[in-house]
């Protein structure tokens, strides 16, 4: 892996060359894994004698459903597939560091895509629920003087969402690479004077596993949870429950 960013692996020679980076390739792997996993979990369902596999799938869907219901409300339950897809893509791509692959979420383009989807959903429901006039009027409330502040506040949400996820995963990648380099140097100092064994960076065995435990398992779960939670909170606020008219 490289500190400076994802490598360009090859180019598709259409439209002046579309570069395929490590991010895109690993993203495809994640999509394939999620698809296969969902396909396996969703096969042979039965109400009479559910298998262990079906129990697992039902447990996961129920947990996600309850989370969406409590955060966004009953009327927003149709967001369940999107939130599930976002969560599973985010967590699996952040966890790719375990296998030595570069995490797709460690690239700003991926997280900006997540944030832009949330941003456009927020604006879409703002226009849909208040009308175009009401949506535009929302920017000059409470006083027209507040217009620039409201605009900045509206744009700050997706930027902070994208940078938060990117920064957490990318800092994990950078710190892991730095620690690997430091351990190689340290083992050269300790055993470098022995002819053959000295060239093996023996300290790289085992010690980075503790880092991986934090960065790849804990942090990636936390960031996936947080980006889906923030998406749910923002979109849920933009699409309030319809008031019951009598």
């Amino acid at each position, binding site marked *: 892996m490289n*500190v*400076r*960013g994802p490598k360009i692996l090859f180019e598709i020679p259409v439209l002046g060359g579309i570069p395929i980076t490590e991010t895109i390739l690993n993203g495809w792997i994640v999509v394939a894994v999620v698809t296969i996993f969902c396909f396996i979990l969703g096969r042979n369902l039965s109400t009479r004698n559910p298998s262990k596999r079906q129990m697992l799938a039902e447990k996961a869907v129920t947990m996600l459903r309850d989370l969406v219901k409590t955060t966004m409300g009953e009327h927003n339950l149709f967001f369940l597939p999107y939130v599930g897809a976002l969560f599973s893509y985010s967590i699996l791509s952040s966890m790719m560091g375990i296998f030595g692959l570069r995490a797709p979420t460690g690239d700003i383009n991926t997280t900006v895509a997540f944030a832009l989807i949330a941003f456009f959903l927020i604006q879409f429901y703002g226009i849909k629920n208040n009308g175009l006039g009401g949506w535009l009027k929302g920017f000059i409330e409470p006083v027209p003087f507040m217009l620039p502040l409201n605009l900045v506040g509206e744009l700050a949400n997706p930027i*902070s969402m994208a*940078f*938060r996820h*990117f*920064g*957490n995963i*990318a*800092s994990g990648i*950078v710190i892991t690479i730095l620690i690997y380099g430091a351990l190689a140097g340290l083992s050269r100092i300790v055993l470098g004077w022995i002819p053959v064994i000295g060239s093996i960076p023996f300290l790289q065995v085992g010690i980075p596993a503790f880092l991986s435990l934090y960065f790849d398992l804990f942090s990636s779960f*936390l*960031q996936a*949870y*947080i980006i889906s*939670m*923030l998406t749910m909170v923002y979109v849920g606020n933009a699409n309030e429950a319809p008031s019951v008219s009598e």
Partner: protein
Amino acid sequence: MEMTEAIVKAASAIGAGIAMIAGIGPGIGQGYAAGKAAEAVGRQPEAKGEVTSTMLFGCAVAESTGIYSLVVAMILLFANPLI
């Protein structure tokens, strides 16, 4: 011309280091939040799960200023626009 570039590089490295001082803020904030969460769990041990998830969510949101400084530092080190 080489001298200018060397000065810009050195200043960028120092600037990246200074930018990461912003890490103090989220550190204090998250520590405070974790302390309060520990207090809350001590007072109401049955609400442990809810307190923990609220704390983690709040911590992650409070972290964003630290992340901004990290992004600034990484731009200065790896994608410097000044050179």
